[in-house]
């Protein structure tokens, strides 16, 4: 692989990693507060749909983004209702919401647009346009001619949609909120020992809803990016398991923001490679495309199996806070 191809693959990795990273940070907030969320997938999907739908109708990507966040927040609210208020099973709630998203997006898309469960293709204005950093080249032809540094700058660093840069910014921001603010302290505490938070006079329910809400906002951004940044419109099941992979990345990252960045970049890279190359010839054997497609999932299983070191989840994670039986 020559330098420019490598850059292109890395460039693509960064784009693929972005929704993973935002969703992963979303999960981080929720799970640090003790609410497991396998519904990241569904929230992203719902957000992807509504953002594309609204962007298509209004022609504004910003209204689309808002709508996407709204859809995701609605799902968060249901998850919160089920797992916080009614102390239901968080896994079942997540699974149900994933199905709900898978079904309702297509049903409504068909009802609104009658395009087979898709939204119309988004035109400029309805999408996140690439941001060209000062001095960067834009067209492939120019970049191909340029020197390596310029190639690196123009191909990899410049020319991404706003959410890509925002996602990278969310990482230090998440770290700061969790470890340097009062809210962060309480959030971490409620995921470890909700009874300690409760007896300290802080509302467990309020904190957990706040965390689930942040999770919703972030998933909304992730989903909106998928439909209005990475692609130009919504298609059925377009999240394609990204929510689950984000979850695996979260475990891989041991619920820490910086590690999450690394994990998501890795998964993004795998996806970029799988998308770009069909059968990969390793000389000795040819790796079939199905293996490449399945690689992120296989890797997830390996990570979950703890072959990369044991991950200890937040202690109260997954359990409803029950005071009175």
């Amino acid at each position: 692989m020559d330098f420019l191809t490598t850059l292109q693959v890395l460039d693509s990795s960064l784009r693929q990693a972005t929704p993973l990273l935002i969703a992963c940070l979303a999960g981080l907030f929720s799970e640090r507060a003790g609410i497991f969320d396998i519904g990241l997938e569904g929230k992203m999907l719902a957000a992807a749909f509504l953002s594309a739908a609204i962007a298509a109708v209004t022609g504004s990507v910003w209204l689309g983004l808002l709508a996407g966040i709204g859809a995701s927040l609605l799902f968060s609210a249901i998850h919160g209702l089920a797992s916080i208020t009614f102390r239901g099973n968080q896994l079942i709630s997540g699974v149900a919401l994933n199905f709900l998203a898978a079904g309702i997006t297509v049903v409504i898309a068909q009802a609104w647009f009658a395009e087979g469960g898709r939204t119309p293709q988004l035109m400029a204005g309805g999408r996140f346009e690439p941001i060209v950093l000062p001095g960067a080249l834009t067209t492939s032809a120019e970049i191909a001619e340029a020197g390596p540094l310029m190639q690196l700058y123009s191909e990899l660093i410049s020319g991404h949609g706003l959410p890509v840069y925002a996602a990278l910014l969310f990482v230090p921001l998440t770290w700061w909120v969790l470890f340097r603010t009062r809210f962060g302290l309480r959030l971490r505490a409620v995921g470890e020992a909700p009874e300690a938070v409760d007896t300290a006079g802080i509302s467990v329910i309020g904190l957990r809803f706040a965390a689930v809400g942040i999770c919703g906002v972030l998933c909304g951004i992730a989903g909106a990016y998928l439909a209005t940044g990475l692609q130009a419109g919504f298609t059925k099941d377009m999240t394609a398991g990204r929510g689950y992979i984000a979850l695996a990345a979260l475990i891989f990252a041991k619920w820490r923001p910086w590690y999450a960045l690394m994990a998501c970049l890795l998964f993004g890279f795998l996806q970029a490679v799988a998308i770009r190359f069909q059968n990969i010839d390793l000389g000795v054997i040819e790796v079939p495309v199905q293996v490449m497609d399945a690689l992120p999932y296989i890797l997830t299983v390996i990570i979950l199996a703890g072959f990369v070191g044991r991950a200890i989840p937040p202690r109260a994670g997954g359990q409803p806070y029950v005071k009175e039986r």
Partner: protein
Amino acid sequence: MSQTPAIELKGISKAFGPVQANKDISIRVMPGTIHGIIGENGAGKSTLMSILYGFYKADKGEIWINGKKTEIPDSQAAISAGIGMVFQHFKLVQNFTVLENVVLGAEDSGLLRPSLTRARSELKKLAEEYELSVDPDAVIDDIGVGMQQRVEILKALYRGADILILDEPTGVLTPAEADHLFRILEGLKREGKTIILITHKLREIMDITDTVSVMRRGEMTATVKTADTSPPELAELMVGRKVLLRVEKTPARPKEKIIEVRDLNITDDKGVHRLKGVSFDIHAGEILGIAGVAGNGQSELLEVLGGYEKATGSIKIRGEAIDLTGGKSDGASRRARGISHVPEDRQREGLIMDYSAWENIAFGYHHDEAYRSGPFMNNAAIRADCEGKMQRFDVRPPDPNLTAKSFSGGNQQKIVLAREIEHNPDLLLVGQPTRGVDIGAIEFIHQEIVALRDKGKAILLVSVELDEILGLADRIAVMFDGRIMGERLPDQTDEKELGLLMAGMTTAPGGTPQEA
């Protein structure tokens, strides 16, 4: 009296589903006093105090603080009313530092740094004032329970509590640590603070409280001045009738050695040494009692003997070694060797709460010939057997079809005992046989254990109740920090000596305690 009470509760009632935990309770506590609350397990003491602290919400009733009617819908309100509480089970964030735990919920601003700095200097002041020194940067996971309790007290004081509630604070402490705690409480009382102390130990009540309330089955049966009462009177108030505490038994006649335990060691997955070279023997026809403060390795010992914890070392039953590596060390193979086990926690381990009584009667023995037919369970046989056992152990109601959770604690324990004792084991392991069981049932259970001994069986009794150990055991081993500190004969020792052993001190021949 003219003085206004610091706390006055009026007609507090609270139900948890079908369980009426508090029924129309009224109580007054004067400022600057220590007020004790006693009552059997499940009497509703913790519930009442949790209501005062805003942890639960009462169904009915009023709370008056310093003469003002106060709504306490949550703990925040209790804290602002000057109430602090140290719960029976600590409410600490295990992987936070002491400082973070103290600050949690009492931060000054949105940013953490300034709060932490202020708390650090404040803690130093409090530590000096009340002999409550702790390392502010230690992580809770790494410090002992005694230390954790100090953190809880510091939390309350940091929030400016004038009224301090302590729920069974000495349950997890050694006698020496308990003494230290009481000195602290005396100091707080001199400062003018009001203290409510829940405990099961009549001696503590007599030693430190000014007034005492007795609870029974959700009701407040009496409140008296400590100086005007006596332990026997309090015991009677607690159970509602005269109590006979001594167990009738004849001296043991030990026969052949049943079990020989040598050099047992356990290290858990966090790398903590839970058992350190434990060795002992038990002979047929004797009861070996293991005394110790909870959490010093007794549970692990029972788990190893019962076959569901791995260990190194050796255990021989009638001279035959059994596997401890986890390969074949399951409960089923232990039972096949004639070991029966009444676990410490009947609801978590001893019973399947959602199984009916008859299903529970077969639990652990479901592979027995009598209970099976091929791959199937012989349900009719089990039911019949269960009826007999319920009859003999006076389980009420004697209905095999009721689920375990619908029996009261004492009756649940009887079901477990019936199952294990009637299986006629060579060795019976018993953990905390009377925890949460009322006095009547205690007498019955003690009699059954002694009867089994007299049939020539070996019994290992683990209990945190020194009275129970002293009354039942033929020999007493004391555990501290995963070790057996020493063995004593019940008629040649007393609570004081055992207490020192429980704290990790050995008594040298000269009589002066030494650190182990």
